[in-house]
């Protein structure tokens, strides 16, 4: 059992740095994510959101600094981390020649789930997301929105304690997006910890307990959306985002 989860902290990032040759993608990033919260990770394109998620899920090694997920160091105990997490990548990574259900099942097997547990988890996810009928069809014929929905369901097949959702609603129509918001919101009720990156600021405002805004790999704002709005005298989070990221552009930072 991880100590961080006992202390109510699911993720800890300390002085995290990631460099690609001369480019600094993540620059001295530090923050904590509490257990059971939805944590919005916001920032303009190329701000370092996806790089941070890739480090936390073991796909990239940090240049320096530390990160723990569920109390396990991502540098030392990545196999333990992988047992706790579910990752929804930015681009729908699915096998096109398989059906939706087969894709979910395959990733359940890759998570070494028991057959019985896997079957009931698939049924639960498909019913909750109203995806049972669609899941019977081959992915090749899916619309963009259906692909995104499947992408999200796959990331939750192992019933992860911590989910990384990298722009899960991009390309969805407003109705599908709203339904997905509800679905993501329901994860909070199940005490799941969710790190959500999105370009839809209203999505982060509606769903997140806390948000971190990063730019050029640096943390520039952290806190609950309401607190940030008050602090920056803004009527919504988008205005906060525009003010602080825009100011950095004007100041040439």
């Amino acid at each position, binding site marked *: 059992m991880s100590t961080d989860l006992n202390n109510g902290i699911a993720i800890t990032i300390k002085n995290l740095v990631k460099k690609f040759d001369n480019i600094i993608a993540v620059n001295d990033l530090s923050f904590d994510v509490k257990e059971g919260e939805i944590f919005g990770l916001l920032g303009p394109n190329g701000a370092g959101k996806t790089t941070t998620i890739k480090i936390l899920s073991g796909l990239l090694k940090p240049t320096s600094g530390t990160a723990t997920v569920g109390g396990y160091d991502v540098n030392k105990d990545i196999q333990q981390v992988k047992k706790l997490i579910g990752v929804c990548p930015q681009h729908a990574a699915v096998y096109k020649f398989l059906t939706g259900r087969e894709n979910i099942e395959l990733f359940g097997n890759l998570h070494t789930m028991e057959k019985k547990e896997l079957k009931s988890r698939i049924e639960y996810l498909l019913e909750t997301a109203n995806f049972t009928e669609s899941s019977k069809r081959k992915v090749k014929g899916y619309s963009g929105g259906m692909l995104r929905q499947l992408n999200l369901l*796959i990331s939750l097949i192992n019933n992860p304690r911590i989910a990384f959702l990298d722009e899960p609603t991009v390309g969805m129509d407003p109705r599908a997006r709203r339904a997905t918001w509800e679905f993501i919101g329901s994860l909070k009720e199940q005490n799941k910890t969710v790190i959500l990156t999105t370009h839809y600021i209203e999505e982060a405002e509606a769903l997140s307990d806390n948000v971190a805004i990063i730019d050029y790999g640096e943390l520039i704002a952290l806190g609950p959306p309401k607190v940030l709005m008050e602090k920056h005298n803004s009527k919504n989070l988008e205005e906060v985002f525009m003010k602080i990221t825009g100011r950095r552009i004007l100041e040439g930072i």
Partner: protein
Amino acid sequence: MELKRLIREPTNLFMMILFPAMLTLVFGLSFSSIESGIPGVSQFEVMAPGLFSYACIFIIMTVAQAFTDEREQGLLERINTTPTTSGEFMGSHLISNTIISVLQVIIVFALSVALGYRPQGGALGVLFAFIFIIFLSLCSVGLGLITATVAKSAGAATGISFIFILPQMFFGTFITITSTTRIIASFLPSFYVTDALTLIFNGASVISPKVLTDLLLISIIGAIIVGLGIFIYKRYSRA
């Protein structure tokens, strides 16, 4: 899953099953009535062991395409976020593709027999022949991994895979080789397999020095190619 990919993707189904089957049928119908120069032996019977090796070679392309495609689609990266290790994943690919390759040879073998090919060596000979086929299939999967490492897209993988397919096809299967091409052939896994299959199906003992030498060489080449394939794919591929 690889079997589902084979059945559901028409290109794969054609390349892996229909193409070798059609080729065997065409060769059988064209050459089974032509004398080989050996009394009572048709040209098709001379070519048949080479056809079995030939059937194994095309999996290079399928494996290269599959791995490149999975990488392009972000699937390898996604799999890397699960507790399944890359070794386990590679191992499952290696086993499933080897099984598909052996299935191809079974189809070609059965068709050849239906077209009048009568191999000698009995059940033990056939069993030994398939041990050689397994080694050649493993080599092909390894070469597929090497191709996938170099290729930037599934389309490029198709083209690059022919660097490994063509020499093996021309110098190591059913095409008669000369003293010059024999030098090139000695570097190709398919040459040793075709040589061993020809010996076994012509009645040579499976423990004859020549067959055992071929077995030793193909197992060494196989281990090197598979090891190298896995190593460079894990080391240099942008998974």
